[in-house]
């Protein structure tokens, strides 16, 4: 029985995919991109507006401005009182919110299908008619500082990650946290937001993604009605600001009150954006699969060998942002198991990297990653929101939504030889940054002298 299953596992059963859902593509005269995907499983629709702006567009002194502006987008427009946007959607039973990343700021509503027009009406209004009120701003920037305390200041791993990232990158804007540095938040001015809004919020810098129980032509007509009248802006793309070449490894220690040590390591790697040759495209998909070989499930190497096996790690992970707009890191991180040190863990992670360079991964391992990716393409269609997210991200980073269609095919084409090649080429010490969280005793008295970690 075991043997039979193993044979199945190594790919003797080809997984066949249902046809990929079609994305209907429109561009309004003012430059707004509209992407509609039909999904008639349930009478719901998700509408997302994606702006090409995020923390990787920011410069020193105003870090976090994209995210603060996202908060202010709920605080009133020429026609809507503060909070009225949210009340209108809630009254219809809708769910709404927004999120900011390095490469995008996005706003979404999920509604019963017949209510889509309200979302369009409200989003069109705040795309061009936001009112930035000084009093609302003064309160909301404090809310964002609380958000930063919650997510970062009081979370030893997040704080370590932030310091690590700012050390790994010296000149690339990805070095800054999405939420911004506390001091920049404290010194942010309303004028900074006004400038940012004028600079980036325009139909020709946005993509409207609609997925659900809708007719694409009807959605197009609704979009023309509500977004069509909005004037476009002149959008000046951000300057390249590439990361300077790293010429030697970097290390940092973050000493904080904490219970657990934590290790994070990152190697400089390219991403799909800017992959300007077929060879480079092959490489980035190989890096994507390589992260899966290490951390693609409970049978992948880190879980099998570090968490089980040698039991050096309580947790170990790996990650790579194939679809980021700017070159990033191939990441490894972990927490040592009790009885093991950070040094043990680092040695074990480095041994994993060494092995990727010295030995080719087995056919079984590769087949398992591919099986999961292929099945995942079916599972992800259980969520209209996730489908819209994927379309929105790819479009907003400039790759185009149709890269989604290639994903499975590209992953399936990756070979053990390519995996070994990218490991040798990119997982090298000269571009490595390592951060270690060294726990200090959790003593409360120190906090009395330092009322705020900011």
């Amino acid at each position, binding site marked *: 029985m075991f043997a039979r299953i193993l044979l199945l596992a190594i790919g003797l059963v080809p997984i066949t995919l249902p046809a990929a859902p079609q994305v209907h593509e429109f561009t309004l005269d003012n430059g707004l991109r509209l992407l509609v995907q039909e999904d008639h499983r349930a009478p719901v629709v998700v509408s997302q507006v994606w702006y090409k702006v995020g923390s990787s567009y920011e410069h020193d002194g105003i870090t976090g401005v994209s995210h603060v502006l996202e908060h202010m987008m709920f605080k009133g427009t020429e026609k809507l009182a503060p909070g009225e946007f949210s009340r209108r959607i809630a009254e219809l039973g809708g769910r709404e919110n927004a999120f900011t990343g390095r490469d995008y700021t996005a706003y979404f509503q999920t509604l019963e299908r017949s209510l889509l027009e309200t979302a369009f009406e409200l989003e069109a209004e705040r795309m061009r008619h936001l009112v930035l009120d000084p009093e609302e701003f003064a309160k909301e920037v404090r809310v964002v500082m609380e958000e930063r305390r919650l997510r970062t200041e009081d979370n030893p791993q997040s704080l370590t990650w932030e310091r690590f990232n700012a050390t790994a990158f010296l000149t690339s804007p990805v070095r800054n946290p999405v939420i911004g540095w506390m001091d920049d938040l404290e010194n942010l001015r309303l004028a900074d937001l006004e400038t940012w809004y004028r600079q980036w919020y325009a139909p020709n810098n946005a993509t409207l993604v609609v997925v659900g129980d809708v007719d694409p032509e009807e959605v197009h007509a609704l979009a023309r009605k509500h977004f069509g009248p909005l004037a476009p802006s002149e959008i000046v793309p951000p300057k390249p600001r590439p990361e300077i070449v790293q010429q030697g490894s970097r290390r940092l220690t973050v000493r904080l009150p904490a219970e657990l040590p934590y290790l994070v390591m990152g190697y400089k790697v390219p991403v799909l954006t800017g992959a300007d040759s077929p060879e480079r495209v092959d490489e980035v998909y190989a890096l994507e699969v390589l992260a899966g070989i290490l951390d693609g499930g409970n049978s992948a190497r880190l879980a099998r060998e570090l968490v089980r096996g040698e039991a050096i790690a309580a947790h170990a992970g790996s990650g790579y942002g194939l679809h980021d707009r700017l070159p990033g890191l191939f990441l490894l991180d972990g927490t040592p198991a009790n009885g093991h040190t950070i040094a043990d863990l680092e040695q074990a992670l480095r041994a994993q990297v060494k092995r990727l360079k010295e030995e080719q991964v087995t056919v079984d391992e590769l087949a398992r990653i591919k099986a999961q990716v292929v099945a995942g393409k*079916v599972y992800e269609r259980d969520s209209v929101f996730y489908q819209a997210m994927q379309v929105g991200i790819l479009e907003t980073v400039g790759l185009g939504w149709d890269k989604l269609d290639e994903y499975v095919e590209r992953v399936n084409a990756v070979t053990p030889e390519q995996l070994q090649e990218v490991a040798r080429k990119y997982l090298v010490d000269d571009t490595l940054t390592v951060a270690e969280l060294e726990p200090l005793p959790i003593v409360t008295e120190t906090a009395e002298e330092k009322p705020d970690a900011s």
Partner: protein
Amino acid sequence: MPARSLRLPRVLCAALALFLAAPVAATPQIQEWTTSGGARVLFVAADALPMVDVELVFDAGSARDGTASGLAQLTNALLGEGAGERDADAIAETFEGLGARFSSGAERDMATVSLRSLTDPALLDPALELFASVVAEPSFPADAIARVRGQMQVALQAEQQSPGDLASKAFYRAVYDDHPYGNPPNGTQESLATLTRDDVLTFFGRYYVARNALVAIVGDLDRAAAEALAERVTAGLVSGEPAPDLPPVPKLLVPIDIHIDHPSAQTHVLLGQPGMHRGDPDYFALYLGNHALGGSGLVSRLNEEVREKRGLAYSVYSYFMPMRRDGPFQMALQTRSDQAGEALAILRDNLERYVAEGPTPDELAFSKRNVTGGYPLRIDSNGKLIGYLAMIGFYDLPLDYLERFIERVEAVDHGQVNDALARRLDPGRLVTVTVGPRNPLDG
């Protein structure tokens, strides 16, 4: 007229039928039966995607720990660490090689074991075969017990550096005291150290049995295939007995204030008391009653008072968490520690006023529109549906729970809401937990 209507083209008839059906979201038909071994099954056919979700829900959460705190979670986490002749590596390899997703988890009431698979028989058959083995014949290897215990101990350490986790743990302890819900699901350092393989075997043998199990299935199967699947995944379970009733939750007799010193920038504030249970006669009145207070996200009263008016917190909310027995009512926020006293007072004042006065008629009408208007969103995916099946089955809710959801929300009147809030919430007997660098109640 009848003669004319007979001549309507067939297509038009179909269109009319669709139009008539349109305003009401189609509620999925829940089918129910019992396996030969005595496990109850709830099934919804969903044929749009070639996939199936299966969830086994056992009444085997941490409320069953007794004095062995952490045992339910340890037992549950060990499923998948060895079954029959297979070790953890073989189990993970097989599921993942088939593109199947296996997971498990345990909280206070439920312990779940779940599988998501494609329905292609070449993939689904071996996935089910393994799933059945994992559920019925776990081997609980000694090295896996030691390792998983170690991971749970590390998780307890992580809790010590998280003010939110510290607050939550202290809250449950204070609200439930020595009721089984007061027992921390992830155990304590002391209890974890004492748990043995025998404890695990005994716990498994008692609670992971057919008559203590619910099987929830959503996916692209017909009834016959779903019946076969349910038989298959429960085939190895012994019939056993349902878990005994949990004791009722005693009311709090006095207010309890707890402060935990922690060197964080923010102070986490939790307020609450025992709330309501699943199937509670006051369920819809309290659910709607809480909605305007702190259950409606960005538009709730608490959000307005704490965040919108004063900029004191990023996240502020209240909820009832209905469980087998009265789960908690909780209000929460986090704020820079020098503002915690002010924020705490706002929470208390608002609760007091709200319990005395209830929502305004506008607020209640708004809540009803939000809840009924959002109904289609609750059931728009297989993933959400299986959650509802698990809940309906586990808590013995009526099978028409979803079908009648809107009607029952609409039926709640203002008097019922105010009455339920007044009877079920007592602002004079609250547990207050604060975690931060200074006790806001010290002034």
